[in-house]
């Protein structure tokens, strides 16, 4: 029987890990992810989760340990944030290139200096080229549901690629709200037992993670690219199937709000989509046909659906909780790439907001949206930092 609980995003993830019957958990503490590690430790010692709980010495080793256990056929999980995710960087590339189907939860946080334990998406954005799938969620419920979906996506024989489930630090990881915990039996039916292709098995000996060059190397890399592109459709399918079984779905690659007839669209990722929805409603009350496009899958990047939903937008505000220093917000430049070459594309305001844990209010989005409406020439571009413009 489904059960209702009042949960933080972190606890929601922990319950998903429990429902997914994970066999090995290796998590290293870091704020704001730590409560996931702690909740899982409790569930394990309470016997509610039958998993091996590894206390490794770093995040690099946490992911490495998961690789090791996955390699011998055990579903494995880790979670981290910020410097911890940065410290995993080599291993993320390794897990993706080696096609290991792992699931990581990322409680998004900025990376210092300046040090900040608070929320920001820079940590996972910095991993955009590692080959891992990245899904960003809005609510505790979505965090739980997406984590379950993530195992199914990662382990799909056509994908076999690690999946990062990203939840905003504190704003989502630590805020509590109502969550429906799915029935264990339903989850078991939805999520087949762990499958992987690369195994250390004396009965079928292989050398894993071999070397290659030139042509053979390129072949394997192109297969890796095919798989993660393929994941694009699989993410949608899994979300659909999840909806049929559990009655909740999230739009697959993107989640749209009042977009169809919008001529001003706000693109965003993660839990600030909530205030973006408020901003959309307020703008509409003031006669601005606004809509919101929430990108759930940042990798693979959904170029096609983004094009589709922005086809009619005349103004675009892209909110980035990150910044690719020396260029612009990552979501913004990826969206530019998606729209490249389309007939009359909209001018874009790139709103850099929510850095270092800053709250984002609907009103702030609305005022940036009003700025955006002043821009008419598609080649116009503006980057607006929260707080600083009014200085």
């Amino acid at each position, binding site marked *: 029987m489904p059960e209702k609980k*009042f949960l933080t995003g972190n606890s929601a993830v922990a319950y998903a890990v429990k429902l997914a019957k994970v066999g090995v958990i290796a998590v290293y503490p870091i704020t704001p992810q730590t409560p996931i590690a702690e909740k899982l430790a409790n569930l394990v010692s309470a016997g509610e989760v039958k998993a091996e709980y590894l206390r490794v010495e770093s995040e690099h080793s946490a992911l490495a340990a998961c690789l090791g256990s996955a390699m011998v056929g055990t579903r494995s999980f880790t979670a981290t944030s910020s410097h911890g995710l940065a410290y995993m960087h080599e291993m993320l590339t390794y897990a993706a290139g080696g096609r290991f189907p792992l699931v990581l939860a990322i409680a998004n946080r900025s990376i210092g200096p300046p040090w900040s334990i608070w929320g920001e998406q820079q940590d996972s954005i910095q991993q955009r080229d590692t080959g891992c799938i990245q899904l960003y969620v809005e609510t505790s419920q979505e965090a739980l549901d997406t984590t379950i979906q993530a195992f199914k996506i990662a382990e799909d024989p056509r994908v076999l690629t690690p999946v990062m489930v990203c939840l905003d630090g504190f704003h989502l990881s630590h805020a509590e*709200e109502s969550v429906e915990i799915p029935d264990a039996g339903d989850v078991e039916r939805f999520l087949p037992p762990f499958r992987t292709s690369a195994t250390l098995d004396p009965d079928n000996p292989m050398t894993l993670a071999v070397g290659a060059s030139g042509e053979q190397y390129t072949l394997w890399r192109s297969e890796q690219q095919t798989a993660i592109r393929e994941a694009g459709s699989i993410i949608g399918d899994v979300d659909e199937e999840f909806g049929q079984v559990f009655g909740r779905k999230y739009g697959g690659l993107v989640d749209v709000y009042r977009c169809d007839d919008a001529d001003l669209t706000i693109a965003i990722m993660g839990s600030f989509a*909530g205030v973006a929805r408020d901003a959309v409603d307020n703008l509409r009350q003031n006669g601005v046909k606004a809509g919101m496009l929430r990108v759930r899958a940042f990798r693979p990047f959904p170029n096609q659906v983004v094009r589709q939903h922005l086809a009619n937008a005349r103004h675009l505000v892209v909110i980035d909780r990150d910044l690719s220093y020396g260029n612009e917000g990552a979501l913004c430049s990826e969206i530019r790439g998606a729209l490249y070459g389309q007939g009359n594309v909209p001018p874009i305001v790139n709103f850099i907001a929510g850095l270092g844990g800053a*709250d984002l*209010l609907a009103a702030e989005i609305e005022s940036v949206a009003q700025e955006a409406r002043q821009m008419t020439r598609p080649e116009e571009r503006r980057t607006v930092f929260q707080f600083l413009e009014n200085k």
Partner: protein
Amino acid sequence: MLEIVWHGRGGQGVVVASSILGTAMAIYEGKLAMSVPGFGGQRRDAPVIAVTRVDDIPIRRRDLKADPDYIVVFDDSLISVAVSGLRPDKPRHVVVNSTKSARELNLAGWEKLTIVDAASIATQVIGSPIVNTVMLGIFAAATGLARLDSVKKAIADVVPAEIREKNIAGAEAGFEAVQN
């Protein structure tokens, strides 16, 4: 949407109080709720706030910049902070743990005001000056927002087993203190 802002100091259980009220509203009062803890590595005695939001439709904002309908203050040294800068545009109910009078607390102006010496109730009933569950009882009685029963169930869900009973008793005591 109703916004409840909790004020206290690190160690007084402000975040837990917000979590308990949220649980009561979301699980036992059929509402939608969200509890937003004051973020960051507060250490003991530092001022802490938490915000509980209650509504019939999904709650979208997750910030701490609330425009409170209810203000609950665990430590009367924090009152000035708690009520400063609040626009007089809507009725707000202030619930304070204090031995002082409204005037001493500079709260004379407020018509919706509940002052109870929750500390001594807590010390009596729970055996420690941690007032959060007592304040929940007081809040329930004074505001009628949540039924005592829901608050007690929520305490049972949130508070660790070994101190559960005491805290439920604490809530009851707080509730009665207002009733009578």
